[in-house]
């Protein structure tokens, strides 16, 4: 079986190529079969590989497929590594990926670009699996950039709109900005370790002492973290993620919630031993994560667009994960990745289902999404009507499956005791407290905000009464291809807790031990969680859970009767409301203080430097000077023969002078 594992990433690639090249002609049926088939095949192979890995004595399955780019001292093989970390991630990607593919069959059924969509999605799975399985940083970077590309293509999927291309471009460029960090980080690591193969780096790292102060590894890891902030939408590179909701909802679920955006966390886990060597970086990671979590959560409080709320929630949750990583809780962070993948995908797909339901009148998905730019929304031009929370309400009755699955996901995300969200979040908060109580405090506040806006979302969408009767009348439960994934994801959300119920509550947090071969690579850095006591864990958990539930209740009561209460509150704090509603004006600031100066700079360089200085002074001026002096010398040719004779006489004088001198 081993020799077929290269197909795990390649199968989706083949699917992408097929769908891209001949999908349109082959028809929707073929596209569906191929598009889903390859991911399913990949999933099955992945499961097989996973168990093969488990069978290995050191839980590592190394697959090498020859040299890719080797020259001089640099050698980068095409190699795949399956270990507990990548294996788990691989399963998440393939598994959730498959579910979302399945969901998309229903969601995208009316779209003209059906084949194109599946081509992109398959391609994404290919790149994501490459990212996860790549044995070297470079191969990981292939996936890293590749998922960025797919994200770009999928965000810009409705390319004939105004908004989607912009959002895609923004996503790609912001990611690229982060990728610079990865490239620089790789260069530094290569200069330091002489290799870019992950296992080699980790082996060497095991023999090193942690850096005190700012050293090479600190620099390298910080640079890698810059990449992570780009991909995982952390401050300050989070800007693209909310805009990324311009893509079709399955995309948001798969890429911008479950998989791609977590690749930053995944990378840090991958290189955990190296990061552990750089305490400064760990602090930075923790604080950036905490700040992002809080920052995004505050914005999420007031958004009207259902997907925007979820997007900021994602940013916020990603912040949590980094907070966990920064607190050396690699397993905790990764566990949150895992649980988050389930419940956030579920939330998005649920939202998609709602949007699907809210949409009325237009027969084709094409036209439906043509309106996603929100040009027709009367009350708020920034939000399209079918995504506007303020126009929903009472959908519980119309779409029960969606309602119930969404409820499970919401409970998970707000950390309702006993859910998977509770388990992962609590572990992170606990570790944060051990690192620095302030971090814990930020985390708890964020949790409260999360609980508030999630309940706000849930209440506005499903409870109360319909605020847009027309849309409500047309709303309907989604088809089975969509509800089935919802159900499966809900099951996953519930079951995920099994993997990491905290020790403090009698669990074994088995994921830590499970990941240990990968995150510690046989060394014993970062053995945390032993410093505190179960009493402390209980106390902390109680505080945060109580506060969270209180916020949730607050959220529910604020919105259960419509919008009046919240409107009154907004009027009470107009400035704050406006600030949050406009996302702290960061986009505007970036445009004003970053992009415009750069374009101005380009223009100045071009018009002033290129055209005037180099071309004008350096190139054309000598030419003009030559012509002018030519005009001058031509004046010497007066046409009067006496002058000619005089010049000859002068010449004679020169000759005589030189000869007689």
């Amino acid at each position, binding site marked *: 079986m081993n020799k077929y594992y290269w197909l795990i990433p390649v199968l989706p690639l083949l699917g992408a190529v097929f769908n891209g090249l001949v999908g349109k002609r082959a028809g929707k049926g073929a596209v569906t079969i191929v598009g889903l088939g390859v991911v399913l095949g990949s999933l099955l192979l992945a499961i097989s590989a996973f168990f093969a890995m488990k069978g290995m004595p050191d839980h590592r399955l190394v697959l090498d497929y020859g040299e890719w780019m080797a020259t001089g001292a640099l050698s980068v093989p095409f190699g795949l590594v399956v270990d507990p970390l990548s294996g788990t991630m691989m399963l998440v990607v393939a598994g959730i990926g498959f579910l979302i593919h399945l969901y998309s069959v229903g969601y995208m059924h009316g779209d003209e670009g059906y084949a194109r969509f599946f081509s992109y999605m398959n391609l994404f799975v290919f790149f994501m699996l490459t990212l996860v399985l790549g044995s070297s940083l470079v191969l990981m970077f292939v996936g890293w950039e590749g998922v960025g590309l797919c994200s770009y293509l999928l965000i810009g999927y409705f390319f004939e709109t105004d908004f989607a291309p912009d959002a895609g471009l923004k996503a790609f460029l912001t990611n690229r900005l982060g990728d610079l960090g990865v490239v620089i980080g790789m260069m530094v690591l290569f200069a330091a370790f002489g290799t870019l193969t992950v296992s080699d780096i980790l082996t060497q790292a095991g023999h090193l002492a942690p850096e005190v102060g700012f050293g090479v590894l600190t620099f390298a890891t910080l640079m890698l973290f810059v990449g992570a902030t780009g991909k995982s939408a952390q401050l300050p590179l989070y800007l693209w993620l909310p805009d990324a909701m311009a893509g079709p909802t399955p995309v948001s679920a798969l890429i911008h919630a479950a998989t791609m955006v977590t690749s930053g966390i995944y990378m840090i886990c991958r290189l955990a031993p190296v990061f552990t060597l750089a305490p400064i970086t760990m602090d930075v990671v923790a604080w950036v994560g905490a700040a992002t979590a809080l920052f995004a959560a505050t914005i999420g409080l007031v958004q009207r667009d259902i997907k925007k709320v979820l997007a900021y929630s994602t940013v916020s949750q990603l912040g949590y994960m980094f907070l966990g990583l920064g607190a050396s809780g690699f397993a905790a962070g990764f566990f949150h990745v895992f649980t988050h993948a389930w419940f956030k995908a579920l939330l998005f797909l649920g939202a998609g289902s709602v949007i699907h339901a809210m949409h009325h009148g237009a027969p084709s998905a094409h036209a439906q999404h043509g309106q996603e730019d929100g040009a027709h929304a009367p009350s708020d031009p920034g939000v399209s009507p079918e995504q506007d929370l303020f126009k929903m309400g009472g959908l519980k009755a119309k779409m029960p499956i969606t309602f119930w699955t969404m409820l499970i996901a919401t409970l998970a995300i707000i950390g309702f005791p006993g859910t998977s969200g509770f388990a992962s979040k609590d572990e992170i908060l606990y570790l944060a407290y051990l690192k620095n109580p302030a971090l814990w405090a930020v985390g708890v506040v964020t949790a409260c905000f999360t609980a508030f806006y999630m309940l706000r979302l849930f209440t506005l969408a499903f409870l109360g009464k319909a605020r847009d009767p027309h849309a409500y009348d047309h709303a309907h439960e989604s088809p089975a291809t969509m509800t089935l994934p919802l159900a499966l994801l809900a099951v996953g959300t519930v079951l995920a807790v099994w993997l990491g119920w905290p020790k403090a509550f009698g669990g074994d947090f088995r994921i830590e031990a499970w990941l240990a071969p990968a995150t510690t690579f046989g060394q014993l850095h970062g053995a945390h969680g032993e410093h505190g006591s179960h009493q402390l864990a209980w106390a902390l958990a109680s505080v945060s859970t109580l506060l969270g539930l209180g916020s949730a209740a607050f959220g529910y009561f604020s919105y259960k009767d419509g919008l009046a209460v919240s409107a009154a509150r907004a009027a009470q704090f107009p400035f704050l409301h406006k600030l949050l509603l406009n996302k702290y004006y960061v986009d505007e600031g970036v445009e004003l203080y970053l992009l415009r100066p750069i374009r101005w700079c380009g223009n100045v360089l071009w018009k002033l430097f290129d055209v005037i200085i180099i071309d004008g002074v350096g190139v054309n001026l000598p030419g003009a000077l*030559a*012509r002018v002096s*030519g005009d001058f*010398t031509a004046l010497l*040719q007066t046409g009067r023969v006496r002058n000619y004779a005089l010049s*000859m006489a002068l010449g004679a004088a020169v*000759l005589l002078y030189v*000869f*007689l001198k």
Partner: protein
Amino acid sequence: MSLTPSQWAALLPLILPALGACLIPLMALDKDQATSKWIRVVMYGTALLAVGASFWYLTDLWNTGAQPSFHQLRMDRLAQFTGIFVLVAAALTILQSWDHFHQEGWVKGETLSLLLFSVTGMMLFASTSHFVVLFLGLELFSIPLYALVGTVRARPESAEGGMKYFLTGAVASSCFLMGGVLIYGLSGTLDLAAAALTLKAQGLALDPLVLAGAALLLLGFLFKVSAVPFHQWTPDAYEASPHPIAGFMSVATKGVAFIALLRIFPGSLAPLGTVGVKMQAVVAVLAVATLVIGNLTALVQTNVKRMLAYSSISHAGYLMLGFVAGTPAAYDGVLFYLVIYLAMNMGAFGLLTAFGLVGEKTTFDDLRGLGWKRPAMGISAAIFMLSLAGIPPLGGFYGKYMIFRELVGTGHVGMAILGVLASLVSAYYYLRFLVALFLQAPGAEAERLASDRPAVHAPLAGATVLVCAAIVLAGGFLQTFLADGFARRALVDGLGLIR
């Protein structure tokens, strides 16, 4: 009086064109020569025959390796080289003038006669180191040229150009004469080679009068090669004269003057070491001036003939650089360059005839779009212009290469850099020619005029252009043959310059 065969051999190459020159005016006595074609055919035939016979005879001499002499005339390899050079130029000129005068609407047998006289004078000028013959040769080729320049009676500018050429030329030849006389006076002999030896023997090599004499001699040569500041007649005279004559002047006068300069200064006067050094110093200064002024002024010309005139001035600059280097190999380069230059410039002027440009209609605008109408001529034009600009792999590049190489080899890197900068400038105005030919469509007015006029019919001029193009190309690919087999042997056997 009877002459020995050897003396005949030395004289015959000169006698043949002279004979032609004497015969043709007899045919030109007929008043209807413009209209009766057969007379024209006979006149041109005679001229070509004279030139051809002389050429044939000279090549024969060259092949046998004989170097006969008659009194002061030394028909050595260098002289044979010169003869072949001049005769080729003359033949091309004769062929081109058939078409040109036909286009202009008049034919004068006298022009052919004068041309042949001039050819005789040139061969004489470059074949002797005796001052009397040198002077007579100079006058024999100059005076017919004065007349030729002023011969286009229909154009007021023609006589003006001739007058300017004449007056400046007469001043220059007076200076030349005075210089010769001074050297004679102090040495007692009119043979410059003998004079140099005598002066050296008497320790008079540094006598101021000798140096002044040498300076004045040099002036005569520099005038003929149109070096700055003795160049100002050039554009006026070229513009005034018929196209083929302008081509002939630009090529033959310059070539012969350079060869004579070579024969006299580094050759005959070599024993007077200082003179050679000072000559190089002066030529260096003037070469710089020539390159700068020639090229810059050429840049702003609108008239093609004037552009070519200034270009010929700037080429004099490059050739002078060969003298600045002053090594045998550099002189080899000079001779090689002259051969290519002959083809390039005769070709360029021939193009004007081939394109049927008459009178004053020789501006760049008149050339527009012609390259596409006459592709063979267009390609030839490209070859000439690029070669003039010194773009490899054409012949012009090799000439420059040889000269610059010696220049750099003798430590004149600065001069070489100036030289290449000058060719950069020159590339611009040569490209302008091509721009007009290929890159610009003819103006509406020009199109209308062209449709009124009968189609240009210039087969002979066209043929000469093709021949010239072939020579330029050959210069690029058979450079060794031309440089070593032709130019170098002329130097070795004629001057004994190369070791």
